[in-house]
Structure formats: C-alpha cells, structure tokens
C-alpha cells in the first residue's frame, strides 16, 4: 500500500518537475538562426563546394587520381614549344600542359577533401558555398576549365601539327639513324668480311 501511494505521488511529482523545466524553457532565448535572412557562422576551412582556379592548375591530375569516387575528370594537352602564347601559371612556373577539360560531378563528390591536399599549386580548394541545389541533375556537373572550345580546337590543332612535325622529325631522325646504322653495318661488314672469308678459307 505504501509502495502504491509512493508510486502515485512520484508519478504526480515528476510530471510537475518536468512541466517546470519546460515552462522555464518557454521564456528562454531561442537559439534558432533564421537561415535565408541570418546565417550560422561557417569556418573558412569548411568543406563545401569545390572550386578550381584554372590559372593555377598545372594539369598534374593528382586530384583525379586521389579521388576515392572518381568524380573529377581531367584532360590535358601538351603545350607546344613554339606556341605564340606562352602562358605562365600564377605561381610563376611555365605551363607545360593545357587543361581543356576539368569537370567535377558534384552529384558524385563525397567532399572528403583529399583532392585539395594533394594539389601542388593549391588550385583546387573547398569553398564555403553550399547553396547550389538545382532542379536538374545535369546542373551539378560543373565545368571549370576557362578554355573556349575554339581555343581548345586551336591548341589541339597546334599540338597535332607539332606532333606531326615531331613525328616527321622523328621519322627523319629514325631514317637517318637507320641509314647510318646500315652504313655502319655495311662498313662493318666490309671490314669484317675479309676476316671471315679468311677464316673460312682456313
């Protein structure tokens, strides 16, 4: 019986205690941050949308290789030595590679931050921007390269020409080398044949 009375009393009392706590919270300062008008502070190193600075990228593709989900697509073109436009990377070194394609698929990206740590020129980094939800998934496929298609075509042509030239030069060199080799061989043959003949004759 005593137990029963105690239980009933406890039930009543703990309800009162709980109501007291919720009542005090009723008048406490609210912690809500009203998002579109007001913003919660985001630290500068927050890992949100990725951003690539095309002038910094030297096309080493280490970001694409470290990416665990393979959401970075990089294509590079070699810079031709006799290119009239000899670009410098922002850190002062000569550009060896054009980057016509640098795409990040934010629908796949897992925001792990590995790509930003391996980048030698700090071209790719996370920004604090997070408001880029879209109505279409294709909009999440972002192209970062600053090269226009014409420029890419031009550079490609240049490279092809250069490669053709190089190939021709190589072929020439190879031909020359082959010629020389055959000459040398012939010479060697000419030098060695009497010996062998003499050997045979012996």
């Amino acid at each position: 019986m005593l137990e029963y009375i105690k239980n009933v009393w406890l039930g009543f009392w703990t309800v009162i205690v709980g109501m007291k706590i919720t009542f005090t919270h009723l008048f406490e300062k609210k912690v809500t941050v009203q998002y579109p008008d007001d913003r919660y502070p985001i630290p500068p190193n927050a890992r949100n949308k990725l951003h690539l600075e095309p002038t910094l990228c030297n096309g080493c593709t280490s970001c694409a290789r470290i990416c665990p989900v393979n959401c970075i697509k990089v294509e590079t073109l070699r810079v031709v030595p006799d290119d009239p436009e000899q670009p410098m990377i922002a850190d002062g070194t000569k550009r060896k590679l054009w980057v016509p394609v640098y795409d990040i698929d934010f629908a796949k990206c897992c925001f792990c931050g590995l790509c930003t740590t391996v980048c030698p020129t700090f071209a790719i980094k996370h920004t604090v921007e997070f408001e880029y939800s879209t109505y279409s998934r294709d909009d999440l496929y972002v192209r970062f390269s600053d090269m226009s298609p014409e420029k890419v075509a031009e550079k490609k042509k240049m490279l092809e020409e250069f490669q053709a030239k190089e190939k021709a030069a190589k072929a020439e060199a190879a031909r020359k080398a082959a010629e020389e080799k055959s000459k040398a061989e012939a010479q060697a043959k000419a030098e060695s044949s009497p010996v062998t003949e003499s050997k045979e004759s012996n």
Partner: protein
Amino acid sequence: MGLLNKLNQPYEAGGIILGTFEDILNWGRARSDWYLHFGLACCAIEFMAMNASHFDFMRFGTIPRATPRQADFIMITGTVTLKMAERIKKLWEQMAEPKYCISVGSCANCGGPYWEHGYHVLKGVDRIIPVHVYVPGCPPRPEAFQDGMIKLQKMIKEEAIFRKRKKLEEETKIELSA
C-alpha cells in the same frame, strides 16, 4: 462587363480571377508542406539536425508525418540500395497528389561514393521516382537542406493548375511546328 466576362480575358491565359485563385492555392501548397519522416543513411542525421532548434525546419511550415498518406513531399536522404528501391517506389505511390520529392546528398543524386563499385546501390533515385530538387553534398549542411526547400517552394508557387491544359497545348503546338 461583368467579372465573369473577365475570365475569358487573357491574363497569363487564365483570367484574373483564376489567376489570383491559383496563386492562393499555390501559396497554400507552398507554405504548408508536410514531409514524410523517413531517413535512410548519413544524410538522415543531418536531416535530424536540421529539424533541431538551431535550424528549425518548421519555420518553413513543414510538419513531420509518419505515414506517406498525409505527406506532401518526401526527402530521400541517403543511399538507396536496390533492396530499398522498391520500397521507396511503393511509398511514393502511396503518397497523395500533389506530391514532391527532394533528393538529398550524393548517394540519392547518383549513387555518390558508391556509384562505381557499388553493385547493390541504385545510381540515382530519379531512376525510380521523379525528383524535383537535387541538393548536393555528402552530407549537405542543414542550411543546404533548407535551400533545397526554398527552391521547392519557389517551384510550387510558379506551378500552373488551371493553366495546365493551355500550357500543354502551347507546348505541343511548339513541338508540332518545330
């Protein structure tokens, strides 16, 4: 000229009264969105955080409902496996029109980190149900969820109810002429 005559007058192809009436209906649907209380994976934890005091999803007029019948939109928060996909399709079919879907996080958008080797993961929830807004992130910040919600509300506000047929006719006309 009575008010009824104005109905036939061109106001965005619907008449003044229908136009404003439609705006009121759209306002109601945009401002009172009940969502299905449904979490799948990591994003669901951020979803819970978004419901909590600091971000307070209810500011947008949303109320969590446990049953799909009473929900207006569903947030797919997390990895959709093939086993789960049929359940999600069923849930979507159980919801009453008008209904919307927000796909949250990389996993729901297109398989996310599992798109390459995940033999068991559906590569994007839009393969089974229509998705209205895609929220990127893995997981997105709570504010990003709310950004997606604002985009959805904007979309609902501009929806056509009465003008639908007219609009469709116009579209087909364009298609035919093209």
